[in-house]
């Protein structure tokens, strides 16, 4: 068994209807590291996550988790195997309170007795959420909703976290906070696969980077060397966005 890599993608092909999005994607994600996926809009990054989590039927190819074939497993089986997923966009239960939303993050816990403590710890970590613990989640601001989702996704003890653009809508301070948590998790041995458009900041805290374009892996390298590559800066990191002073 490959102990270095927690997740492997072998020639995965899949898409929606007659559109093929993942075009023989191949990649290996390291255990205990943060890997950031970057790429243009529509490259298939979110689709890749859906494929891992069993939300997208594949046409061919295999996905291995800890060396075992998990292609076509249901979300529940992936959760039980130790993978959790925080999707892109707005994914809350609008009419439940913030606290109840959080608690639902622990549904898949094997031993639910520890749940209240975890929820409490999470609320402590994000005081904005604590303030609104008993409000209906739909009344949160856009950023607060995203934060709630991220917090909910971190309630379990997964081996691998899939997290799709957590920084959208978060203030810079909050982005730092979330990235800090991710680093903390990594340090305690959790593997993290992250999609970010906020690529510079994300790569700066990552160990590895993965560039996806047109559903294929372009570059797989350490984060540092991707950041240093001028070609990549030009193509994917928005070379034109220099602050005017």
């Amino acid at each position, binding site marked *: 068994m490959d102990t270095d890599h927690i997740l492997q993608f072998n020639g995965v092909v899949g898409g929606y209807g007659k559109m093929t999005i993942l075009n023989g994607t191949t990649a290996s994600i390291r255990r205990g590291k943060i890997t950031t996926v970057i790429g243009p809009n529509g490259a298939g990054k979110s689709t890749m996550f859906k494929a891992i989590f069993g939300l997208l039927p594949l046409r061919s190819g295999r996905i291995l988790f800890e060396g075992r074939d998990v292609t076509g497993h249901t*979300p*529940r089986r992936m959760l039980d195997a130790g993978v959790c997923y925080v999707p892109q966009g707005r994914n809350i239960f*609008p009419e439940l309170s913030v606290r109840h939303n959080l608690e639902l993050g622990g549904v898949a816990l094997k031993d*639910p007795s520890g749940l209240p403590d975890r929820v409490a710890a999470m609320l402590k970590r994000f005081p904005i959420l604590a303030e609104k613990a008993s409000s209906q989640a739909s009344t949160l601001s*856009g950023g607060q909703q995203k934060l709630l989702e991220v917090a909910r996704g971190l309630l379990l003890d997964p081996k691998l976290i899939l997290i799709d653009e957590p920084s959208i809508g978060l203030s810079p301070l909050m982005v730092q906070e979330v990235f800090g948590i991710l680093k903390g998790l990594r340090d305690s041995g959790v593997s993290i696969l992250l999609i970010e458009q906020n690529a510079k900041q994300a790569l700066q805290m990552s160990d590895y980077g993965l560039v996806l374009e047109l559903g294929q892996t372009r570059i797989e390298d350490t984060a540092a060397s991707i950041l240093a590559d001028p070609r990549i800066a030009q193509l994917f990191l928005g070379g034109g966005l220099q602050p005017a002073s």
Partner: protein
Amino acid sequence: MAEILQLVIAGLATGAIYALAAIGFTLLWQTSQTINFAQGEFVMLPAFFALVAMNWFGWPFWLSCLVAILVSVLLLGMVFKVIVVDPMLKQGVLPLVISTIALGLLLREGAKDFYSAEAQPFPYIFPDRQVSVLGVQLSLSQIGVLLIALAVIAALQLFLSRTRTGRQMQATAQNPTVARILGVPVERMILYTFIINAALAAMASLLISPIYLAKFSNGEHLGLAAFVAAIVGGFNQVRGAIAGGLLVGVIDNLAAAYVSTGYRQSVPLILLVLFILFRPQGLLGRREERAV
């Protein structure tokens, strides 16, 4: 005065039955966005199950009632969910609504064609005796109905708000995709609501049929009453459905006594429209605001 009191109590008893139907209705709405236009038929039918058990198989009344509830849970709960709702959940609300309209038609016609087109007498569950309480004549049957309905509702409310399963059912209701991602067994949760709905409907059926007589067309009135109760009470609230049911029951009875007969059917409907216009969140509901 005694007359009004009698009317109110009779209204509460029927209202409690409406509430049972209304709760099931809101539950289905919550978990699977099913506006069940067959809800009235769900209340009509179980009485026929009991009749079949009694008249065809000759079973005793209590056993027949039990059988009716079980068969309802099986047919109107599980089979309905698996055969009608499941294939349509992903197709959006309208096809499902249409399907339930068709199902209502199917059950109505089915009861008529396979049992009888005619009303059937149905035994009282409680002795139909009068007792005099503080000078007011009350019927034992009405009190019994009221108590049963309220007890069932209270238990359900506790289940939904206090237990993990209840919470997961609510989560499923609001966002099944995300619920699935978090590991909620969405299918099972939805199935539970259908089972609960069927059981509630069966109970309502056994309670109402002695008064209405069992007839295939009873569903029309009952369904309407359940919708009105659900909306008046607040569409997404179990508590509200009780208040709505009781209110509709009482108003119904008072209207029958004091409003021109030609238009008395319209009184609950006017109530409905007023609520929709001025208090769309319902009697006990909270106002939902959406942020953009």
